[in-house]
């Protein structure tokens, strides 16, 4: 219980830091990029929208702490402001439209790569010097060392442009109406295959190496030797005795990876012009859409913090020693 409370306290602090960073950075920027933009929108926006923009950008003569308080109140009401690019759509609505794409793509590829990578790591540790251990592992580690966006470009060029196996961009075929029909879902899958595939390929090596190294340590434990001496089935010793006790570091790794991957979705979605949070963030930067930019940053930060918190909880359940 004390463990849980400490973790909750820590994550509340981290969320506060993220929110405050989001508040401070626009105000640190000299030259006030927002004022110029505001001038552009005067006359187009109603006074209330203008006022909320002013609050957001700190174009206000109130003392800083009053602005900060107003900003927090706006946030608590879920008011993230109005997007410039998709005017007059509220930022929260833009984010709502984009987020299912990112969550599905990133979620599925992360789970696949975690499961496959961990299993490969188990096999690599169990059969040292085999094909998986001495060839696949270095190859996948090398893949992980290549900058992800470039790996994605190469796959897009070879499999998309040269061989025409996969579409070059987008999240679905625009010729087919958006619905839950099987035709539409088929185009979603064919469009998602390359983005997901490259994420899996780039991250497999990390899971595999982590699992292999942790498992090598557990393999030397007496209970594993004992299980083998008893003549238990090999698969049982491998999975239930050795792998089960070696998986903990990978579980924490899962949370850290979640942070990396949610941020990394930025590059995936831009290379493949795939709809989602990352692509929207990129558009927001290009168009100086500051409300959208800040809204998305806050959302990503929250998502990462929540994921980390869940991983901490899982760790506490799996390993009672940390409590």
């Amino acid at each position, binding site marked *: 219980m004390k463990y849980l409370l400490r973790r909750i306290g820590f994550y509340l602090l981290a969320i506060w830091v993220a929110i405050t960073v989001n508040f401070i950075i626009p105000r640190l920027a000299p030259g006030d990029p927002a004022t110029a933009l505001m001038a552009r929108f005067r006359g187009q926006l109603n006074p209330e929208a203008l006022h909320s923009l002013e609050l957001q950008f700190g174009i206000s003569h109130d003392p800083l702490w009053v602005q900060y308080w107003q900003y927090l109140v706006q946030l608590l009401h879920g008011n993230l402001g109005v997007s410039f690019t998709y005017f007059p759509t509220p930022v929260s609505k833009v984010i709502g439209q984009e987020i299912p794409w990112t969550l599905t793509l990133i979620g599925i590829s992360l789970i696949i790569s975690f499961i496959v990578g961990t299993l490969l790591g188990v096999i690599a540790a169990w059969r040292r010097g085999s094909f998986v251990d001495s060839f696949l592992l270095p190859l996948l580690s090398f893949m992980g060392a290549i900058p992800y966006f470039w790996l994605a470009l*190469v796959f897009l060029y070879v499999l998309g442009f040269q061989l025409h196996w996969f579409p070059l961009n987008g999240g679905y075929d625009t010729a087919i109406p958006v619905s839950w029909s099987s035709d539409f879902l088929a185009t979603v899958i064919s469009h998602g295959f390359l983005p997901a595939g490259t994420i899996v390929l780039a991250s497999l090596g990390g899971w595999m190496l982590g699992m292999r190294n942790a498992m090598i340590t557990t393999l030397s434990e007496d209970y594993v030797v004992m299980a083998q001496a008893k003549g238990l089935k090999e698969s049982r010793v491998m999975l239930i005795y050795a792998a089960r006790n070696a998986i903990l570091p990978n579980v924490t790794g899962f949370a850290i990876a979640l942070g990396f991957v949610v941020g990394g979705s930025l590059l995936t979605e831009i290379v493949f012009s795939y709809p989602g949070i990352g692509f929207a963030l990129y558009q927001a930067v290009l168009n100086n859409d500051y409300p959208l*930019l800040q809204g998305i940053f806050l959302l990503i930060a929250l998502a990462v913090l929540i994921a980390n918190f869940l991983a901490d909880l899982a760790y506490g359940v799996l390993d009672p020693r940390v409590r």
Partner: protein
Amino acid sequence: MSRPVLSQETPDNQLPPTEKDGLAAESTPLSSTKSASSRLSDFLKNFTSNRKALAGLIIIGIFLLIAIFGPIFLRQDPNAFSSDALQSPSSAHWLGTTNLGQDVFTQVIDGTRASILWGLATALIATFLSVVIGIATGYLEGVGADVLVMVINVFLVLPGLPLIVLVVAYSPVRGPLTVALVLAFTNWAYQARVLRAQTLSLKARDFVVAARASGESTWKILFWEILPNEIAIVVSGFIGTLIYVIGAAAGVEFLGLSDVTTIDWGTILFWAQNNSALLQGAWWWFAAPGICLAGLGAGLVLLNFSIDEIADPRLRSEIHRKPRIKRWSLIPVGKVQPAP
């Protein structure tokens, strides 16, 4: 995730390198009775006889030579336009040309210096922060140290790339310096935590207690007694950070969030993407900078693996040997192949 705690292993390194090469008579690796200079030569011998280290050093050396001397040998201005637009590689243009007729080979060679220099600078700042904060929070006690530990933990969970995008978007100056500073300030925390853990365990050792008892100043203890014992971790952390920041900086430049008029590997990729080199089939435009990034990354990864193996003998003996001896004796022959 990218920095393995244990070194990856091939059959080569199961024996200490000196034995493998038949030099066992000359030196016992890392034995305690040696003088400092002969220990250094042992270290160098270990290093050069480790194939991974050698391969990594050669790759990195080539890139460093290109970075230092490459631009001297270029006959062309990397920005010079010509009428040979989007040519594939030929004897006139070894790596082809861009849509404006710039020579990709000249650009890649010229860009090597900027890519490596900014990467080194970023990794140095990040490592400096991690060393100071990691060792200080490990050794010192009190409210200040507690607050710093909290800062480390918060930086560990803040998402790096989106934060970079946010800062760069508001930054009045977009350029390599901004990118380097933001990358450095978002990438020191992991290493600081590792060093803090190590310092915590060194703190109670006899030599530190003795230094404290003899009245040495805290600064001297931190940087003369503790830091030298963590140098292997610092170095491999530096290389790990370098690998990450070179890739991340290229990614940020690829997104056009840096100064796109300077030439380095990332901005070449930005222009290639911006002029849809891919859809025009101009593979050569983005192939070379990417291969350079991947090659340098691979060289650094190899070096890091070998530093883990050489500098920390425990990784070689205890963790690698013990399971081997215990385990293989119990596995029925034929079911599992031991490494040759």
